[in-house]
């Protein structure tokens, strides 16, 4: 369920819609569900509606997690090499 695709807002209209870009596609989306849509925001679009802004960068927690995983996988990865 719930195929959602990140789009970057490139233009805002008055009526709660915006133009947004996803890869090579530029399309109209609704911004009713998010706060302060802004040009440049990356938003997750589902069924034509932006349902949330997404942060383009990994959280600190995530970065920490990757470190842990590298550690955890250490030996195994060597086996692959």
């Amino acid at each position: 369920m719930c195929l959602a695709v990140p789009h970057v807002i490139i233009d805002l209209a008055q009526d709660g819609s915006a133009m947004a870009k996803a890869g090579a596609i530029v399309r109209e989306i609704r911004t009713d569900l998010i706060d302060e849509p802004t040009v440049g925001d990356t938003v997750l679009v589902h069924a034509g509606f932006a349902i949330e802004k997404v942060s383009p960068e990994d959280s600190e927690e995530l970065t920490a997690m990757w470190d842990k995983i590298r550690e955890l996988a250490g030996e195994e990865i060597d086996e692959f090499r």
Partner: protein
Amino acid sequence: MSSDRAKLLSSALKRLTKRPTTIMEVCGTHTVSIFRQGLRSLFPEDLKLISGPGCPVCVTPQGEIDGAVELATRKNVVMATYGDMMRVPGSNGTLGELRGSGSDVRVVLSAMETLRMAEEMPHKEIVFLAVGFETTAPATAALMIEARKRKLENLSVLCLHKRVPPALEVLSKADGNRVDGFLLPGHVAVILGHEPFKFIPEKHGIACTVAGFEADEIMLALVDLLEQIGENRPSLTSRYEKAVRPEGNVKAVDLMDRVFDTSTSAWRGIGPIDASGMSIKEEYSLWDGSRKFDVAVRNVPEPKGCRCGEILSGTITPKECPLFGTGCTPVNPIGPCMVSSEGTCSAWYRYGRKGDLKWES
């Protein structure tokens, strides 16, 4: 995901899977994503992923599909719905087949497209067949609010929306539940936040992680779950931080609350679940297709031999259904889980019917 990262995650998963472990991916998009990206072949043997009731098309009872199909055949009705619904079989055929017999059934990408349809066809009754969980329901709510504002008399909604958390509660407390952890649906969590899922670890002691849909997001979430399980400290974590705020999307929840009441709703193969439905509030009754057209919902028995009920509750995998791949294939599907492109049986058949292929070349 780079295959380097994949290897990393794959070996992390192997390390963490210390005993046979069962994780349920609740969301149909997770099911498809896991299959399409071939992730199952990267999991250790003891890690078993089963699918849950997370395909909204699959969990809609046949009687409700039949009601929608009947409504679409009415002379003046133009029915609009998401592509997902076109192939689901009612007792007398699918919406797609109906279009083949001359009914006007249209595929839309957004509920809002029906506004223009209503304005352009004043002599027709436009019915939006609304299906989906908490992700799609806010769009339906926005549509109804707008239809009311514009006083559109020829637009209505046949609402089949469902809520995810109550279904997870039923599964969590079911006898014989063998789920060690839930891979929680990322987009539902975007809307609802963490709170509505906390009861799962807290009341039922089952590990939970909210997951995104990329390969690495899914595998990271599995790492998270396996750690919780291994350390026996079930909690609710999120590996979809880039999109999910712990408090969810307040605006979207508010829209749903303005338009929908919470009600009991029947889930195909599972049965009625308290508080799992969305019924249209009295003040929007003029835009409620079910009331407007007095759509009848009969109780229709499940197709004979089909074990979708058990599939949807994670009790069995498709391979355990004797019809899978023989009597029931995507070409001649028996149950909804084989029809919907996000159905568990369909995904198993299309991407993994012969088990996990081994790379030869």
